Structures are given as C-alpha cells and as structure tokens.
C-alpha cells in the first residue's frame, strides 16, 4: 500500500521524532556548557566537534531537534487550522463572506512577513518557541486558505454536498463532514508544506537574529556558527550537521507528502508504472 518513498520518509521522520523525545537524555554533554576544547574538529569525544566556546555541537543538534519539531508541528497545525477555517468558509459560504475572507487572506498574503514577525515578537514578553510558531503560522496560512477556497468552490456544488443538504444536514456539518474530508489530500500536503516552511522560517529567523536564541534548536546552532563565521574559520563541523539535518527533515516530510498524494488520489494510486496510450501486453 504505502510505497517505498513514503516508507523512507516515515522512517526518517520517526528517527527525528525519536531524537526529539530522547535527545536531551542521550546528549553526551550539556549543550550550553562551555568545555575546555575550543573549536575542535569531530572526534570520539565530540562527534560533531566543538564550538568556539567549547560547547559540544552533537549535543546541541540532539537537544535542538525538539524545538525544531515543536515549532514546525505547532506552526503547521495552527496555520492549517486557520487556512481551513478561513479558506473553506470563504469557499463554502460564498457571497459577501467570501469577498471579505478572500480580501483578508489576500492582505495577509501581501503583508510582508518579516516586519510582522518582528512586531508580534516585540509585543510579547518571551519570544520562545511557541510564540515563534504562532507568529509563523500567522504569516503562513494565507496561501493555504487560497488553495482551499478554490478547492471548496469546486466541491460545494458537488451533488453529494447538495444531497447531504437535502437530507437536512446543518451547514457546519456540511462543511466539516462532507467537504472537509474530501480536501484531505490538499490539507495534508498543505500541512506538510507549512511544516517545512515553518522549520525553514524558524531557522532563518534564528539565523538573522530575529527569533529567540535562548533555546537550542538547529537554527540557533547555525546562528552561532554563522556569527562566529564557522565556515571561514574552517569549522565546517559546526555549520554542516544542523543544515543537513534540516534538509533531511524537509526531505522526509516531502517524501511523506508523496505518499499522502498517492493515498488520497486514487488515480495516482492505481496508475502504477503503466504508460497511458499503449496498454502493455504481458502474456503469462
């Protein structure tokens, strides 16, 4: 059922999930503790080497996994919920409500994300992971809402929705139980996309010094590496692992996304390897 790509993605994701849970316990050092070995390349004692202040990069990456996953998932969930509420309502209700909600999502689409994030982060006392997740989701929902609205527009006049209405279903039930389940694929791939976006944005924010770097995450690791110009110093071990982790996490999510697509779209599922137009002749 689940194809190889998806399995690989799920396995990778499960691995990161495991690290997120047990990372702080299995980390060999306190990631903030400044040891005596300054800027050492990878060795038996420090698998990913050490930083300028003698911190253990491996422990930082391990401990930082949780923050990344939490921000990614929370932002993904919030943005997805927002985009569903606004996009699907706009598409389903139509009329003035639609125009209003579409305008709202268009505005959020054009309002630049960076200042918005800075503003919101400035207003709240503690710019921790959760706050960043909330802010990221604020900037990330609009695109999904547009896509969902378009999809909903095409779904809302489907016969099965009309038929459910004809049996006397209430509007909210039509939206939640008739329209939404058919958007699963779109929502799921939107969710995966948002999670990738949120992870990248969080890391970027840490990197350019907007987000909090009080807690360890891969972005924080990269922030310290970059502000100490690790690459120019030849300390690739400080810069490379966190970046690769992000890339692998993103790839894992994208691979899972392949699976979601094929699972929810029967055409993709059954199309197999066959080529349209020339039915294979396979005599047994």
């Amino acid at each position, binding site marked *: 059922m689940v194809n190889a*790509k998806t399995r690989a993605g799920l396995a990778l994701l499960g691995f990161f999930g495991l690290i997120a849970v047990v990372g702080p316990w299995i980390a060999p050092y306190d990631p903030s503790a400044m040891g005596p070995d300054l800027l050492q390349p990878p060795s038996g004692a420090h698998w990913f080497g050490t930083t300028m202040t003698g911190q253990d990069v491996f422990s930082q990456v391990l401990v930082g996994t949780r923050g990344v996953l939490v921000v990614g998932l929370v932002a993904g969930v919030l943005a997805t919920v927002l985009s569903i509420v606004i996009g699907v309502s706009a598409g389903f209700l139509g009329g003035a409500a639609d*125009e209003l909600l*579409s*305008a709202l999502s*268009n*505005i959020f*689409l*054009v*309002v*630049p994300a*960076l*200042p*918005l994030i*800075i*503003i919101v982060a*400035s*207003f709240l006392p503690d710019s921790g992971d959760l706050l960043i997740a909330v802010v990221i989701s604020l900037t990330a929902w609009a695109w999904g809402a547009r896509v969902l609205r378009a999809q909903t527009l095409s779904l809302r006049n489907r016969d099965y929705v009309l038929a459910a209405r004809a049996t006397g279903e209430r509007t909210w039930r039509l939206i939640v139980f008739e329209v939404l389940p058919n958007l699963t694929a779109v929502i799921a791939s939107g969710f995966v996309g948002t999670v*990738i976006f949120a992870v*990248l944005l969080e*890391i*970027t924010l840490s*990197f*350019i010094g907007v987000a909090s770097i009080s807690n360890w995450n891969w972005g924080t690791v*990269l922030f310290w590496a*970059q502000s100490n110009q690790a*690459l*120019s110093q030849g300390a*690739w071990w400080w*810069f*490379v692992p966190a*970046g690769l982790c*992000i*890339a*692998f*996490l*993103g*790839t894992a*999510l*994208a*691979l899972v996304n*392949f699976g979601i*697509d094929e699972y929810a*779209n029967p*055409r*993709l599922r059954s*199309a*197999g*390897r066959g*080529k*349209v*137009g*020339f039915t294979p002749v396979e005599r047994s």
Partner: protein
Amino acid sequence: MRFLLRRTVFYLVTAWAAITVNFLLPRLLPGDPVQAMITRFQGRLSGDAVQSLYVLFGLDQNTSVLEQYLSYWGNLLTGDLGLSFTFFPTPVSEVLGQSMPWTLGLMGVTTVISFGLGTVIGVYAGWRRGTWVDALVPVTTFFSAIPYFWLGLIAIAVFAVNWQVFPAAGGYPAGMEPGFSGEFAGAVLYHAVLPAVTIVVSSVAGWILGMRNMMVTVSAEDYVLVAHAKGLSQRRVMISYAARNAILPSVSGFALSLGFVVGGTLLVEMVFSYPGIGYVLFQGVNAKDYPLMQGVFLVVTLAVLVANLLADVGYLLLDPRTRREAW
C-alpha cells in the same frame, strides 16, 4: 468585462486595506527611529545625538496617527513616498529606484528560469512516471528543503573562497561604475551566477513537484487518451494535450511569485551582499524607517496585487472555459 471590473474593485479594496495595514505596521513596532539608530550604532554614536536626530527626522513635532495617515495618503496620491530615515534625506523613491533594478534583474530572471526549468522537468517526470526522471524528484526536494542561507554560504565557501571561481559578494566589482557597457554587463552576469544558481537550485523543486502531479492527473483524462487514439506523436500529446492543461494551476502560482519578486529576498542579498531591495527593507525595519518600510510594502503590495490581477487575466487567456464568464 464585468468580471474584470469586479475583480478590479476587489483588488482596489484589498489594496486600500493592505496599504493601511502597511501604514500601521511600522507604527506598531516598539521604539522609534532615533532610539533604533542609537542602538544600531552601539555606542559609536553618542547619546547626545538623540536631540539632533529627533529634529532631523522631524519627529519633534507631535502629530496624531490620524493626521499622519491622512497626509500619508495625500503624499501617496501625489507620488511622494517621503524621505528615508536610514538614508536621510534621500527620498524613498530614490532608494527604491536604486535597488529595484537589481532585485528585478536577479529575482525576475531566476524566477522565470526556475519556473521554466521546473515546468519542463515536471512535465517530463509526470509523463514518464516511474522512470529515472521521476526518481529525480525526491532529490530536488532535498535541495528545496535546505535552508537557503546554508546553501548560499556553502556555495560561497566552496566556489568563492576555496576555488575562487566566482566572486563572493556584490552585484559588480567594487571599483566599477555602472553603465551600459559590455564590460559592465559581463561583470554583472559574472557576479550573478552564484546567487542565481543557488536560487534556482533551491526553488526549482516546487515547480517540478506541482507540474509533475498535475501531469499525472491530466494524463489520465479522456482527452489525452483520445489524443493517443488519434495516433498523434508522443511529443504532441505530451505538450499540446497533457502539459497544456496541466500547466494551468502553475500559472497563477507563477504570476504570484513574479509579484513577490519585487520584495526581493533578504537572504540572497544578505549572503551575497547583493544590492537588492530585500536588504534595504531589512535595514529599514531595523531602523524603524517608517517611510522606507511603507515604500517597500507599497511597492510589494501593488506588485502582488497586479500580479494577482494578471494571473486572473492570464487564466482567462489560457483557459477558454473561463472566457465566457469574463466577456
């Protein structure tokens, strides 16, 4: 026509709301331009400068936000975007005019390349589902999942510092004066190679993926089967029947991303010291430069909305089914 009119009104309202938000956003930021400037200089500008700066930026007079809003609109309508604080007293329009061509050049071209390349690969991968081309798709997603700055910095470390085949920073050589000479154009191209390639590498996967999935879906449509039945060549079926229909959803995405081109990309400009608008905005935000921020927001907002409108129109032109509704 009525459709266009309705869309236009819709966009005007959206533009008004977005511009108002853009006006309010900077003012919601804590602090003020003078304090931000002092902070930015971190002691290299003495505390005494505060007074002169308030006078300089004209912030010593008290005006209500409403008054500011009204005069902002007044100025906007006369095309006056005000004077930037960061680059005081350079007019915002001049700051924009100076950085916009670079942004448009680099981002515009790479967006087009990325879209073109991604679409072609996506069409092929979708058409030859299950072959090696298709297997390439996860690889490209790997690149799109890399944080851009990481890719850029590694590229600099490898190609600019280690091998020294491309310059590490800037849009053109430091001593050269911009002009319409072949030499300058060559230098600009040379400096653009590394940023452009990294942008394309990190953004092409999105187009590939979208196009591929649409191709797979469209390939199962009846009219593609009919095209096969008609005995048309594979190329013709792939391009005129499958791809021509599959590209429709990508088009509006493309138009939108062209709109966002105007905003530049902070990361590219930071990593490669490229003289674009993204970094200017970043400076403006850090400096509480209301006029500059508003100016950039305005341009981005308008560009995105116009791109949106163009996407609508483009859709009308590309998809005959929607034409009837429009005219």
